[in-house]
C-alpha cells in the first residue's frame, strides 16, 4: 500500500511535468505571437517594433521556450505562482481559484446524477436483454447524444426556465453562504439544469456499459449459486451483481470526469457558469492569440483532477474487490526496487498522511498565492504601451468570412475604452457579388456590433454607436469598403466583458417587395465576435 502511495505521487509529478512541457511546446509551435495579446499587431496597425519588443519582454516571451518553461517551474515551486494572465494581468492561481469550484460542482454533481440515472436504468434493461424494454431504453438514451449537448442545454433551459419558470436562466451561486447569491439552496437551484444536461450527455454510454457488465456478471457461477440458494432477486442484484460491476464503472467515471471539460465547456457557456471551461474558451479565443499562462493553469488543474480521481477510483475498486492489491505497479510506471523495498517497511497510514500533507502544502501554497495576488492586478499593467487616459484593449485581428458568393473581410485595428465612452477603429470590405446591409455598431434597439455581456444574466446589453467617421453607407455594394472609426458614449464598467462583433443583413431586398418592413433584427447574422475583459 505504501508503495502504491509513493508510486501515485511520483507518477502524478511526472505526468504534470510532461503535460505542462507539452502544452508549452505545442503552443509555441502555433504561429501566432503571444505579444499580440498585449499590443496591436494586426494589419494596418501603428505598433512600432520597439513597442512589440517591449510587449514581448513584458510577458516574457522573448526568451527561448525552454527558458520560459524553466521560469514557469521555478515560479511554481518557489512562490506557488502559476504566473499572470497575458491579457488581464491577473494571477492565474486567482483565476483558477474562482473558476474551479464552479466546474467542480458541475462535474461532481453531474456525475452523481448520472450514476443515479444510469444504474437503475441499466439494471432494468439488463433484466430482459434485447427485449422491447431494453431497446426502448436504448433509443431514449440515444436521444441524449443525438441531439447535441448544446441543443439539449438550450432546449432544457427553454422548457424549464422560460416556459415553466421553475429554473433560473443561468448564472452561478456559491455553495458556501456569503454575501449575494449563495447558500446550498440557491446553489442547487442554479445547478440542477446543468447537472441534468451533463448527465444526459453521458447517460447512453454509461447505460450501455453498466448493462453489459451486469449481463456478464449475471452469467457468473456465483450468481447462479446464489440464485439456487434462494437469495431474493433484489438482494442478488444489489449485493452480488452490482458489487462486482461497479469497480470498472467507477474507474470509467474517474477517467471521464477528468476529461469532462469537453462537456463542461458547452454546459458552462449556455448556462452562464463562470467555470474552467468558460475560462478556457476565453483564454483561447481572445484577440490575436491565446493566453498561455491561463491555458497551462487549466491544463494542470485538469491533470491534477484526473490524478486525484484515478486514485479515488483505485481505492474504491480495492475496497469493493478484495482480490485487488494496490502495489508498486508494473513496467515503466513501476517503482524502482530499492524504493519499493524501503516503502514496504513504512506503514500505509504514515504514507497516506505524508501524501495528504504534500497535497495540502501545495494547495495551501497556491491558495496563499491566490489570495495574496488577487487584489494587486493593476500593478504591472503595461502602462508604458498605452497613451493618455484611454485604455487600449488588445485588438488587431482580421477575419475573412466565407459568404455564399465571395468573402467579407473584417478588420479591427484598435479598441479604446475611456471613462466616458469607447471607440473602435476598423474596416469592412465586401468581396462578394451581393450588396449587403452592414450592421457595424448599429443604433440602439437593434442587435449591435458592439455590446457588453453581463455574465450574471447572460443578457446582451447593447451599446449604441453614436458616431461614424466616415458615415456608413446604407448598403455596402459588391467590392465596396468602409474604413474608419465608430464610437459610443456608454461607460463600460470595470471587469465587464466586451463583445466586439460585426454582422450583416442578407440579402438586401428592395423595400417595396415586402408588405411588412424588414425589421432591423430580422435577417441579422453574426459573422464574428471577439471577447474582451475590461480591467482598469
Amino acid at each position, binding site marked *: 500500500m505504501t508503495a502504491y502511495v509513493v508510486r501515485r505521487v511520483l*507518477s502524478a509529478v511526472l*505526468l504534470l511535468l*510532461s*503535460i505542462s512541457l*507539452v502544452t508549452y511546446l*505545442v*503552443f509555441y509551435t502555433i*504561429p501566432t505571437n503571444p505579444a499580440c495579446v498585449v499590443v496591436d499587431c494586426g494589419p494596418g496597425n501603428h505598433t512600432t517594433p520597439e513597442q512589440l519588443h517591449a510587449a514581448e519582454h513584458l510577458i516574457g516571451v522573448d526568451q527561448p521556450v525552454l527558458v520560459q518553461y524553466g521560469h514557469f517551474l521555478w515560479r511554481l515551486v518557489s512562490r506557488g505562482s502559476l504566473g499572470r494572465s497575458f491579457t488581464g494581468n491577473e494571477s492565474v492561481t486567482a483565476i483558477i481559484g474562482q473558476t474551479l469550484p464552479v466546474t467542480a460542482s458541475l462535474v461532481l454533481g453531474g456525475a452523481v446524477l448520472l450514476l443515479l440515472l444510469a444504474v437503475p436504468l441499466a439494471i432494468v434493461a439488463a433484466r430482459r436483454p*434485447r427485449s422491447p424494454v431494453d*431497446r426502448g431504453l*436504448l433509443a431514449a438514451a*440515444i436521444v441524449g*447524444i*443525438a*441531439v*447535441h*449537448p*448544446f441543443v439539449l442545454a438550450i432546449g432544457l433551459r427553454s422548457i424549464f426556465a422560460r416556459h415553466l419558470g421553475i429554473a433560473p436562466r443561468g448564472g452561478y451561486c456559491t455553495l458556501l453562504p456569503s454575501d449575494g447569491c449563495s447558500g446550498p439552496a440557491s446553489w442547487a437551484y442554479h445547478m440542477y439544469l446543468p447537472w441534468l444536461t451533463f448527465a444526459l450527455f453521458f447517460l*447512453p*454510454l454509461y447505460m*450501455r456499459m453498466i448493462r*453489459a*457488465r451486469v449481463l456478464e456478471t449475471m*452469467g457468473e457461477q456465483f450468481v447462479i449459486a446464489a440464485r439456487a440458494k434462494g437469495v431474493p432477486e433484489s438482494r442478488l442484484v444489489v449485493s452480488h451483481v452490482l458489487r462486482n460491476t461497479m469497480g470498472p464503472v467507477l474507474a470509467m467515471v474517474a477517467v471521464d470526469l*477528468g476529461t469532462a*471539460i*469537453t462537456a463542461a465547456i*458547452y454546459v458552462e*457557456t*449556455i448556462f452562464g457558469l463562470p467555470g474552467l471551461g468558460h475560462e*478556457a*474558451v476565453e483564454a*483561447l*479565443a481572445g484577440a490575436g*492569440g*491565446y493566453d498561455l499562462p491561463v*491555458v497551462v493553469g*487549466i*491544463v494542470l488543474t*485538469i491533470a491534477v483532477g*484526473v490524478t486525484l480521481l484515478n486514485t479515488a477510483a483505485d481505492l474504491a475498486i480495492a475496497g469493493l474487490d478484495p482480490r485487488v492489491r494496490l502495489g508498486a505497479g*508494473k*513496467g515503466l*510506471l*513501476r517503482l524502482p526496487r530499492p524504493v519499493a523495498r524501503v516503502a514496504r517497511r513504512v506503514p500505509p497510514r504514515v504514507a497516506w498522511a505524508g501524501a495528504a500533507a504534500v497535497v495540502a502544502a501545495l494547495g495551501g501554497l497556491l491558495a496563499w498565492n491566490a489570495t495574496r495576488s488577487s487584489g494587486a492586478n493593476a500593478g504591472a499593467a503595461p502602462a508604458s504601451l498605452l497613451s493618455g487616459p484611454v485604455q487600449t484593449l488588445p485588438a488587431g485581428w482580421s477575419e475573412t468570412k*466565407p459568404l*455564399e458568393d465571395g468573402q467579407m473581410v473584417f478588420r479591427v485595428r484598435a479598441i479604446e475604452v475611456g471613462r466616458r465612452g469607447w471607440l473602435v477603429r476598423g474596416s469592412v470590405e465586401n468581396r462578394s457579388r451581393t450588396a449587403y446591409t452592414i450592421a457595424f455598431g448599429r443604433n440602439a434597439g437593434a442587435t449591435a456590433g458592439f455590446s457588453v455581456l453581463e455574465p450574471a444574466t447572460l443578457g446582451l446589453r447593447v451599446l449604441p454607436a453614436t458616431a461614424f467617421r466616415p458615415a456608413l453607407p446604407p448598403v455596402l455594394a459588391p467590392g465596396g469598403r468602409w474604413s474608419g472609426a465608430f464610437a459610443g458614449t456608454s461607460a463600460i464598467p470595470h471587469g465587464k466583458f466586451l463583445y466586439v*462583433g460585426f454582422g450583416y443583413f*442578407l*440579402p438586401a*431586398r*428592395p423595400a417595396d417587395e415586402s408588405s411588412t418592413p*424588414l*425589421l432591423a*433584427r*430580422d*435577417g*441579422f*447574422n*453574426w459573422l464574428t465576435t471577439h471577447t474582451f475583459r475590461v480591467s482598469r
Partner: protein
Amino acid sequence: MRAPTTAAQELPAPAPEAVPARGYWRDVWRRFLDDRAAVAALALLVFIVFSCFAGESIASHFLGHGSDELFPFATSDNLTPRGPFAWVPDVHSAYPPPNAHTPTTLFLLGADGPTGRDEFLRLLSGGQISLEIALGATLVAALIGITLGVLSGYFGGWADAAVSAATEFAMAFPLLLLVIAIGQTIADRFDFVTLHGLFEPGVLSLSVVIGLFMWFHPAKIVRSLILTLRESEFVEAARMTGASNRRIVVRHLLPHIAGPVLVWSTMVVASVIVLEAALSFLNFGVKLPAASWGTLLSANWGTLLSFSNQPPIQTTAWTMALPAVCVFLTVLSLTLVGDGLRYALDPRGEGS
C-alpha cells in the same frame, strides 16, 4: 480473413452423416440474423449510407438544383426558411422579383436557413461528409490503437510500459483545448488538405484530429485481449512450429481481436458523428458552403464563440429537428447493429 481455429473443428468427423461444421463467421452471421431488430437496423444503416453517398447527385438531378445553391425566395420575407414540400421560385437573385411566370423548383424538406439552400440535399451531402469523417476517424484510431495495443500486449516489457505511459498521458491531456487553439489559428491551413479534391476541405484534418482523440480506447481493448491470448495453447503451438512473431500476430492473434474491435467501431462511429458536430461548434469543422450534420445543427445555434447567433424567428422546428433525426437514426441503427454483433460474436457472455 481466416477463421480462428478451435479445437472442436480440428477433430475428425465422428460419423459420415454428421453435419459439416460451419465456419466461425458463418455461425456469427446466423446468430446475427436471429436478432430481427439488429437486421432491421443493418438494413436501415445500408439505406442511410447509400442515400448519403449516392442520393445527393440522384436527387439533385431530379429536383434540378444543387445542395450549395442559394434561393433568395426559399425564405419568407423575414428570412424564415420555408417548410417542407415548398415550391420555390427557381431564381438565384432577389432582382427582379419573381412573378407568376417564374419557374419553380421543389424543396422537399424546405430550406436550411436564411440563405435558402435545399435542406433535403444538404442533409444528404452533409451525411456523406459526416460519415466520411466518422469512418476516417475510426480507421485512424483503430490503426493506431491496434498497433500500439499489439505492441504493448504481445511484447510486454518496455513497449508495454511506454504505451501505458502514453495512454495515461493522452487520457489526462485535454486535447479539446488544443483543438480550440488550432481552430482559432491554423485550422484554415489544415482544412485545405483534400487529396486533390477527393474529400471536401476539412474532412481529412477532422478525421485525423478526432482519431488522435480516440486511439487509446482500442489500444486498451486490444492490449488486454492480447495479454490473455498470447498465453493460449494455439500461440504456443505456432511458436513451437517455428512461426515468427509477425506471423503469430498477423495469422493467429489479429483474427481473434477482429470481433471486439468491430463492435467498438460501431459504437465509436456513432460517437464521432456527435463529436464532429461538437467540433463544428468550436470553429473547427467543415467550411461553408459544404455541409455536415454537425454544421447543419450548429447553423441553428451558432458556435461556442458566438452562440445563438440567429434570432429565433429565422429558425424553424424543421431545421432544428431534421439533422438531429438523421444523427439519431444513424446512431441508433449503429448501436443496434453493434449490439447484435456483440451477441453474435459472443453469445454466452454478451460481454465486451
